[in-house]
């Protein structure tokens, strides 16, 4: 009963906060609501016995990505931003599309059949600790995707520098 109460609180907070992120006019407010949203999502991960993912969520999203967003928001002309409408002419179309997506997929949810349970039960993870179990899997079975992820991050780093740097006079 307690767990259902917790879930309802987290789900309600996450939906309300994501609506606030999308509908606020001032981008700084959006970024700050998103910070709160990420903390709630990290709480939900703790609730799902994924403590490493909760830590990553706080460190990478709240600590890294949101600071990046806040930096770029500070470059913007907020006065002009507040005086102009926040939606483009595609607003109603976008709303209809999102609502249709929600209704269509939620109707198909009842026909979902879960796969047979794997070997990583909660007892096994508790016995082996979560990070160790995850790391074993990541460095053996998923070693090639892991290397590709490092390449993606390298490309992102170089690409961001090339895109954002000032053109040199030649």
């Amino acid at each position, binding site marked *: 009963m307690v767990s259902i109460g917790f879930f309802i609180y987290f789900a309600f907070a996450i939906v309300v906060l994501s609506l606030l992120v999308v509908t606020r006019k001032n981008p700084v407010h959006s970024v700050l609501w998103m910070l709160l949203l990420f903390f709630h999502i990290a709480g939900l991960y703790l609730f799902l016995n994924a403590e490493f993912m909760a830590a990553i969520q706080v460190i990478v999203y709240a600590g890294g990505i949101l600071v990046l967003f806040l930096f770029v928001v500070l470059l913007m002309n907020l006065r002009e931003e507040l005086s102009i409408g926040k939606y*483009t002419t595609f607003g109603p179309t976008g*709303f209809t599309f999102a609502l249709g997506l929600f209704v269509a997929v939620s109707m198909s949810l009842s026909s979902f059949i879960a796969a047979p349970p794997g070997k990583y039960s909660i007892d096994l993870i508790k016995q082996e600790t979560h990070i160790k179990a995850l790391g074993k899997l990541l460095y053996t079975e998923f070693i090639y*995707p892991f290397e590709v992820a490092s390449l993606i991050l390298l490309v992102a780093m170089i690409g961001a520098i090339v895109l954002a740097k000032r053109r040199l006079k030649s």
Partner: protein
Amino acid sequence: MAVPLSWYMLLSLAVFSIGVFGFLSRRNIIIMLMSIELMLNGVNINLIALSHYIQDLRGQILAFFVIAVAAAEAAIGLAIVIAMFRNRATAHVDEIKEMQG
């Protein structure tokens, strides 16, 4: 009494749909990038809930890669926004029509 899996899926679907709405309708390109992050977070909630209920850690590893790609995407997207600021001094997608899209 445990929380059913379908509630988690419905929650992640709701977050994803809100992200789709924000991406399609907002004028500010930074909010559009934030909507993409919202969509990726919805996917992550779904992956981690499934990994808990099916008792398989692969879902969490997939969520780990999604977070890595999200970080890369945010860096590239914001670099594009900065380049756009420098050339056009605007962050509104409806004022950018050089490509006649």
